[in-house]
């Protein structure tokens, strides 16, 4: 199923069958439940996989799919409802004995100041219906509360059609660690290891890896146990991610992502299991096929290639990609739909693709990923690749001492190493451009002038 703006996208061309949706805007296409169900019926499918974005955590959509007699590849609607209200998820998981950060329920504007004083600063204003980093704003002092609430409500209304917000304490030096869970109808709940996703900007992830560096085996066992307890407490089914903030040996539950996540490939590469196949097994047969015990091996790391300009404070970029060179080699996986001619529009999230590397150790995985990214070339729009090339050589990242504030180091990094090379490249490019043949101008009088200029620039 595709929006008219995506009619020439690779996934549309490569699909066995592709069904157009009514309009360009997301509300007319990927958020249009009646049109999606009509397409599913026309295609004669048995199951619907909601993907990562748009309706992926929407209980009404899951209900509509089941109501149409199709299998929904994801958690049941009541679980989606609990997970969709972040403040309710916190209550449920906390009741199962899992520690949570100080926070509030959904608040009206006039309740903000009082609740903020109770939660304590710094804190985050978060959209109740949030996800994907949207509707989250950091507030350091009470002075910034009103403006941040206004922006968070605006984003939440635009992205989720729900402008409710709540507060949650922010731990500046903490790391973002999440646990991948699979649960089926037989009551089996398996934690497939954790991922560290501390490298973020605007609360959206840029780099994810597993196992999480710096997490001791004792802490890992407690995290995995907490995620399994949380999943059981809410009757979870299918694939899901339990997010935690880790501060030393203590951790706090944040929220559940009730869907497959963008960063699931790192877990797949280390466990050797296909998470989407497991989701399908659970949706269609009620039972997962994971081996017991799992035998994870090595280390995997993912870099998200996003249409954002790291030299302009990660401002989203739009335009047409006019050339792509993707990497390969041992241990490298590339997920995405990058090719020349793809137009990056403002309709969607700026994520373009992901490069994932596996290695026997963290050092090997990072070295492979850096090598792969240095060979990756995307022409036409700025991407986050320069940031990744820097990160994978940064001492703090390489020694895994980084926290969620890591991206601030990018702005403060040492620059100027390549200034002479840039000067040479710019002069040479200008020189070659001046050598290139030019069409004569309309007036004949310009022709001799052009010839004279060429003469003048010729080698002395």
């Amino acid at each position, binding site marked *: 199923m595709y929006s008219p703006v995506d009619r020439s996208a690779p996934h549309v061309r490569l699909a066995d069958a592709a069904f157009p949706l009514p309009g360009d805007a997301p509300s007319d296409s990927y958020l249009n439940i009646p049109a999606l169900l009509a397409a599913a019926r026309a295609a004669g499918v048995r199951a619907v996989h909601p993907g990562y974005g748009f309706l992926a955590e929407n209980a009404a959509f899951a209900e509509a799919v089941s109501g149409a007699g199709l299998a929904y590849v994801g958690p049941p609607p009541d679980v989606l409802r609990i997970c969709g209200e972040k403040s309710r998820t916190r209550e449920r998981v906390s009741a199962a004995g899992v520690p949570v950060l100080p926070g509030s329920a959904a608040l009206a504007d006039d309740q903000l100041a009082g609740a903020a004083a109770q939660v304590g600063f710094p804190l985050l204003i978060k959209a109740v219906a949030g996800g994907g980093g949207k509707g989250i704003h950091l507030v350091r002092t009470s002075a910034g509360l009103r403006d941040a609430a206004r922006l968070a409500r605006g984003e939440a209304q635009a992205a989720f059609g729900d402008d409710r917000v709540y507060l949650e304490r922010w731990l500046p030096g903490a790391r973002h660690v999440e646990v991948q869970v699979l649960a089926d109808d037989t009551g089996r709940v398996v934690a497939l290891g954790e991922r560290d996703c501390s490298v973020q900007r605007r609360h959206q992830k840029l780099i994810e890896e597993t196992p999480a560096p710096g997490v001791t085996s004792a802490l890992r066992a407690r995290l995995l146990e907490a995620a399994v307890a949380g999943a059981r407490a809410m009757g979870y089914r299918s694939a899901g991610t339990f997010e935690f903030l880790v501060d030393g040996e203590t951790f706090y539950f944040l929220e559940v992502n009730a869907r497959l996540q963008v960063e699931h490939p790192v877990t797949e590469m280390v466990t050797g299991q296909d998470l989407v196949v497991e989701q399908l097994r659970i949706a269609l047969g009620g039972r997962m096929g994971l081996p017991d015990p799992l035998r994870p091996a090595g280390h995997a790391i993912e870099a998200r290639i996003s249409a954002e300009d790291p030299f302009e404070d990660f401002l989203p970029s739009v335009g047409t990609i006019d050339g792509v*060179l993707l990497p390969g080699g041992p241990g490298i996986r590339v997920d995405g739909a990058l090719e020349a001619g793809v137009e990056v529009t403002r309709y969607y999230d700026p994520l373009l693709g992901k490069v994932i590397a596996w290695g026997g150790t963290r050092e090997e995985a990072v070295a492979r990923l850096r090598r792969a990214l240095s060979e990756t070339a995307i022409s036409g729009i700025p991407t986050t690749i320069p940031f990744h090339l820097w990160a994978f050589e940064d001492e703090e990242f390489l020694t895994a001492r980084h926290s969620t504030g890591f991206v601030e180091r990018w702005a403060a990094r040492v620059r100027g190493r390549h200034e002479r090379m840039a000067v040479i490249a710019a002069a040479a490019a200008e020189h*070659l451009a001046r050598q290139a043949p030019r069409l004569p101008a309309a007036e004949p009088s310009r022709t001799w002038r052009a010839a004279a200029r060429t003469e003048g620039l010729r080698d002395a």
Partner: protein
Amino acid sequence: MPEYAVTAGGRTYRVHIAGQGPVLQVALDGRVLPVRIDPVVGRGQVRVTAGDLRLSAAIRRSGEEIVVTLADEQYRLRVEPALPIPRRARAHPSGAGELRAPIPGLVVSVDVAEGDTVEQGRPLVVMEAMKMQSELRAPLAGVVTAVHARAGQEVMGGTVLVTIAPADKG
């Protein structure tokens, strides 16, 4: 041998270049290096070889500047022939006093009116693009002489949203 004046940051380099490609002889600070620029993919991705050093680079033009991205660094340079060739005056004034849309998107709110006196950095407009909202702030202090955007309007990148007459200094 053609000579160029290349300005990077605050510094100006004198660069002599001989040859017509693919290999150029480039003289910088008294050293001569063989230099070549080979296309990798698309319009802007190249491989630059200067002497023993090889780096992937993106080279593009942005107005009067050449923007060179090398690994994790980006340089904005101006390249002028050192022998003056008459050039037309710049078509656009500097653009100071204008708040422009940095990318195409939707104007969510306009929080300023004609005649308002604004401080530098005051949020004037909220724009949404790619599901993210960002505040656009006054580039300088002054008096708002025109508001060109309204909430709900879709704008192209570069569209002037607000015009500000700079405050008198002193």
